[in-house]
């Protein structure tokens, strides 16, 4: 260590000048902000009230795409269930009333406690029936069973706004509803 640094004083004053500079600059901005000027004294985003816009490519909570009549577009081909590396999709197929369409899902459950959000199900789907564009990320629950989302819940979800803001409310599975 050079002799000058051994006295620490100069280094301490340099450091204090830097942090004090930040303090007074930010303090001035906070005061200006309080008087209605459009400056911000901090880079903080106050999370639950304010959110950063998500990228449109972000993979968020799944939804099942609906046909015009509201029934699922899914044909229960089991592609997504097969490709899923986490084995979190569970499908039971049934006959579709329309003879032009072979099958439709009787059950379509996704266990989000297992899902790794890889997006393979979206890529594997030949019918573009499952998408991960709801913009919803906060679906915490108090027990594992509530992490299983059913066909009805997934069908009810809407895609997010272009800036990634979710349009649907966070779905509350039945066992969690109070």
């Amino acid at each position, binding site marked *: 260590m050079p002799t000058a640094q051994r*006295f*620490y*004083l100069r280094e*301490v004053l340099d*450091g*204090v000048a*830097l*942090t*004090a500079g*930040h*303090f007074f600059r*930010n*303090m001035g901005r*906070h005061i200006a902000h309080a008087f209605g000027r459009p400056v911000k*004294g*901090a*880079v*903080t985003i*106050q999370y639950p009230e304010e959110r950063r816009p998500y990228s449109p490519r972000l993979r968020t909570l799944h939804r099942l795409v609906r046909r015009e009549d509201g029934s699922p577009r899914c044909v229960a081909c089991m592609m997504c269930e097969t490709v899923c590396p986490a084995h979190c999709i569970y499908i039971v197929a049934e006959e579709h009333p329309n003879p032009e369409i072979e099958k439709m899902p009787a059950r379509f459950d996704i266990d989000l406690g297992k899902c790794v959000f890889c997006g393979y199900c979206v890529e594997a789907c030949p019918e573009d029936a499952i998408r991960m564009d709801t913009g919803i990320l906060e679906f915490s629950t108090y027990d594992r069973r509530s992490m299983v989302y059913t066909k009805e819940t997934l069908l009810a979800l809407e895609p997010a706004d272009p800036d990634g803001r979710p349009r649907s409310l966070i779905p509350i599975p039945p066992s969690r509803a109070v």
Partner: protein
Amino acid sequence: MADVGIAIGRVAFVMLFVLNLGGLLGWVERKQSAIMQDRIGANRASIFGLRVMGLFHPLADALKLLAKEEFRPAHADRFLYWLAPFVSVFFGLTAFASIPFGPVIEVGGRQIPLQAVTLNVGVLYVFAMLSLGVYGVMMGGWSSGNNFALLGGQRAAALMISAEIAIGASIIGVIMVYGSLDMMEIARGQGELLWGWLPKWGLVTQPLAFVLFLTAGIASTKRIPFDTPECESEIIGYFVEYSGMKAGMFMMADFLETVVVAGMTTALFLGGWQVPYLAADGFHFPGGAHLGMPAALVVFLQVMAFVIKVSVMIFFMMLIRWTLPRFRYDQAMRLGWLGLFPLSILNIVVTGLVLLATGGPAS
């Protein structure tokens, strides 16, 4: 009867000042560090939706700490383990007693010095109390029955001794210049003017001692950059085994010591309650201009000056705490014994020579 009332009033003022400031420091620390780091800081605690810039957070902290489980390790010494946090806080609180927050005022023929206790060895009293505070820390480290806590207590003791020596030696220069150990006399002496215009504050007459005292004072508060006794963030300090409000009291003691060191610095180096050029009957500016003032206003201004000076010193100490990394144990020891202590001795010698050349102490 009136005398007892006055005495209680003086003590109550100092007590409430130190306690409230100490409690408020938790908020100051959070908010100041946040603003220094381009953040907003804790602002969520609210009463009826009222947030007031996070001012309720210290309150919420205290409630949380009081409601937490009090856990005592099986091997702990029951009595000393219980006593240690109280010792720490007690000496932190009492240390402020002989620091004057205002001049001697005269009400109804009574001389009332504005300090909790009038002591003619006030400086030594504050040091004694500050040094005794470390016993709480050592007790806590030893009685926890945990070897890591014991090591933390030992680090505290070693750091305290090297800091105390430098504190004691660095203020000898101040005592020589003002010719008294009474804090009130020292504060009064700082109201005089050098060459007719420069207030004779300790900062002006003893600049080296100011730096040394402040460094050693920060070391004696056991906060960053001298927080080797605690090392909250990664190593283990003396209060590992404490939980709930007992741990809170150790933290509180740190804040109280910060207030005491800020008060000491103010009283010894920043002119105490003196406002520059303000005498008992108003302002006397160096040019000869005079601005008369009622005595009550003068006293109010002087007490406010003391409060503001203490606040500025606390701000500065917080600034240092949130700027510097920690000194390693051996660096702190080297700084204390090979840096601060010899420089303090040098300061005494130079002060003595200057006083000899200029004709004795000012008094």
